[in-house]
């Protein structure tokens, strides 16, 4: 099994690789559909994801300047309305004026392509760049876990690598980058991660190490995770003979699916069939 020449590494696929190499192989290399239930209860989970999707869209509409009252009218239930009001009342402030919303960035790093879709990048030219990620998961994960997530390491690193694309005349140091997670579950306590040269170097090495491990497994095989409890929240459990019933959604750390789109980020042609 070879890594396809057009393969892009994203926080989603790398996080999957970290959690289970076999899942990475099945999902991203073999692209094997396996339509089992991931976690229960299903319909509530689906509604939660849908709410998250609409919330992200409302934030996007707000960021591009649509009238607040018209956006808010879309909040179709109390939960969503609550999120929206929390956002209006306690979104991270102040943010620089120049905003990039739902923005995809990609860059090669040691010959591998990395890609990420940012909820919001706010830029003060020559001064700072702030990444904001809106999290709609039911619980706010502890900071220690967040700091270990691939997203926390990949996003600032990629933004720094791509910073020349915003204005070729300005160069940014990692110290000018900050990443903020804002939680609907705890709107008053966003988590902020300041970036640094040292961290950027560590992240660059770490990401490279990860993809080299992936390369290594393509030469040998992708092992099943040794932490079997993960399998209860993985659709492939019957394929791997790792159980029958799906686990509970409460055990999931990150319930958002929006980044799944990353792997088809180039395929931006949404069209109704005609």
């Amino acid at each position, binding site marked *: 099994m070879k890594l396809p020449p057009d393969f892009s590494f994203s926080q989603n696929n790398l996080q999957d690789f970290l959690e289970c190499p076999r899942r990475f192989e099945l999902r991203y290399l073999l692209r*094997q559909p396996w339509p*089992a239930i991931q976690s229960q209860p299903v*319909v509530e989970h689906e509604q939660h994801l849908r709410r998250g999707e609409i919330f992200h869209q409302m934030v996007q509409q707000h960021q591009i300047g649509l009238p607040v009252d018209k956006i808010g009218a*879309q909040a179709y239930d109390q939960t969503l309305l609550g999120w929206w009001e929390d956002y209006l009342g306690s979104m991270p402030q102040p943010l620089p004026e120049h905003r990039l919303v739902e923005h995809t960035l990609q860059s090669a790093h040691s010959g591998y*392509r990395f890609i990420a879709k940012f909820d919001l990048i706010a830029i003060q030219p020559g001064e700072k760049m702030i990444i904001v990620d809106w999290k709609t998961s039911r619980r706010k994960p502890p900071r220690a876990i967040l700091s270990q997530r691939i997203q926390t390491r990949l996003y600032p690193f990629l933004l720094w690598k*791509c910073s020349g694309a915003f204005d070729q005349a300005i160069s940014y140091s990692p110290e000018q980058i900050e990443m903020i997670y804002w939680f609907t579950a705890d709107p008053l306590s966003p988590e902020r991660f300041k970036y640094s040269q040292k961290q950027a170097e560590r992240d660059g090495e770490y990401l490279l190490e990860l993809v080299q491990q992936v390369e290594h497994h393509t030469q040998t095989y992708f092992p099943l995770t040794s932490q079997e409890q993960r399998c209860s929240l993985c659709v492939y459990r*019957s394929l791997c003979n790792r159980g029958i019933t799906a686990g509970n959604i409460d055990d999931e750390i990150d319930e958002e699916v929006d980044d799944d789109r990353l792997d088809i980020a180039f395929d931006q042609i*949404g069209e109704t069939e*005609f």
Partner: protein
Amino acid sequence: MINPLPLMNLPKLSSEQLQAAQAPLNRKIFLQGEPGSGKTTAGLARLAFLLESGIPAEQILILLPQRTLAKPYYDYLTQNPLPPGSLPTIVTLGGLSQRTIQLFWPAISAEAGFARPHQPPLFLTLETAQYYMSKVVEPFLNQGYFEQLVIDRNRLYSQLLDNLNKAALIGFAHTTLGERLKQAWNGQPQHLILFDQAQDCMNAFREYCMANNLLDFSLQIELFIHYLWRSFLVRNYLHTHFHHLIYDNIEEDAPAAHDVIGEWLPVFDSALLIYDQQGGYRVFLGADPQSAASLADFCDEIVEFPPNLICPPTVRQFQSALVKAVQRQLTHEELTPPIKTAFSHLPARFYPEMVDQVCKTIDELVHQKQVAPSEIAVLAPFMSDSLRFSLMSRLEEYQIPARSHRPSRSLYDEPAVRTLITLAKLAHPHWEMPPSREEIRSMLVHCIEDLDLVRADLLMQMGFTAKKQSFPLRPFEEIGEDGRERITYSAGLRYSRLREWLLNYIEQGEEEELDVFFAFLFGEVLSQPGYGFHDHLDDAAVTARVIESIKKFRQVIEPVRSQQPGFSVGMEYLNMVGQGVISALYLPPSEEEDAVLISPAYSFIINNRSVRFQFWLDCGNYGWWERLFQPLTHPYVLSRNWQPGRLWTDADEYETNQQSLIRIIRGLTYRCREHIFLCTSRINERGAEERGALLLAFQGLLRRLHQQGGES
């Protein structure tokens, strides 16, 4: 010719291509040329040049009339190193409409007249639009509408939707459709009322959509054109977002797209518009090469590429002679001896004989002349399932890989999906759709590993409750010991687990959404070790597709569900499948690339790939010339180029058929790099003799050649 752009992994470029690619960053170019003259390669080179010049990728818009035409751009972006930064946007007008509607919905929904402006829009797919059209039309049918029209219901719905799409893409009010069609009608006067009836249905459908936030393709386009594109906010957003445009195959796009680009062009810093001079194949989908050509007026410069780089002179001569023969203007001067090297005639008396000849010739090419199978295409105006099957199986006998370019295939032809449906019927006795014994037997064979037909039969004989009970599967333990041994205890155990799972579900008394039911059933039973789906990865893939199709259906069904308490989406879905309203078409997994392509001629042309050898099947078929019979719509009357009020005469019909045959001949020959085999059969697939215009033209050409041979 050198290639100075380090970013590009493109073939060596001609000076014309380089010139177009490296035009200044404030220049708008209208690039035209024949198919195969290297225009798209110039488009790719332009993209590379823009990126290399430091243009932020997110400022580049690549617009195409349909998704498949995006492939070269998509491949380029995924397979080449790009400068760090964002990505260009590749989109169709439909895609752009959908995205902007989603983003700006709260700003326009009330003004556009939607009854529930605060609720999100529901985007319909072709299938779900067809579903809603069927719901809207049903009461009209009950009133006797379309009684005199012998037409499959689903074709009726699709023609109504097609009309709405045309009105949106061409730019006239959907309320004028019936009148336009009536004014042009030249046949039986009693047909005229059908256009009024069609108009009533289309109006009712649009009203229903407006009342329920349902956006079919036509409404998406209309919203974009009439509201979003007119909104300062949206224009400003699009204008600040995109600065450079590459718009390829503009001749295959509709006037609505041309209008938007015509207005937008002055704002772009640079643009490359690519026009295929012989195109316009998507006329049935509203393509308008004439309005595309008018975009040249908005450009700084018109560049014309020299003739086709692909099609050799002999094939070109053949093209020109055959076109002349279609026009009945073929003269001896058109025919020089080398033309004979461009084509061969494969005559047969019967259809199977023609198929045999084609496959035998392909065998010679592949096994004796070492031609790569991917360099061969077998083409016909329509590709019936039986023709496709006989070609595929004959080629398989010759051990030649083949792939069929059929647009899609129905999920419901897949045994795995039929198995799922049988299980759904068993698990929902209140639907009163009991599966037949045969369906249950096939399901058991498919589901339970090691259960062959004989054992499944045994299980059916012994385990099937004969009486009309709501649940027809008897417990395994009730079967006599002898029978259980023959069935085997391991198969019996699996049977029992499946049975128990179904019974548990029924006892639970609450109907799950059908997609959720399938996902549970798949994960907890069917894909577990010992069951049929465990090792069959393709079955898992089709199951995933069917679940996705049901989920999409469920997500837009709220307007109907909310009106009917106790409404079962699953049952409705299966009913619609049964009636053919939903066919859940899907693209089968990609087949081997180095394979002979079997494809309808139009699809081959639209996909814009060239091959060395082409086989044109059944040249006598009228399908090469005639358009499809569509009693409720008309691709030429519903067009900007049609003068309202004119009658569509037989002369018009003849002329457009002639033109479309000429277009096919050109489209195919431009994509042929070596040789064409014209295959004829005296008796066609249905056992009749057919002498269509392509055959007559070809015979004319052969006669002339023969005369010439005699004279010399």
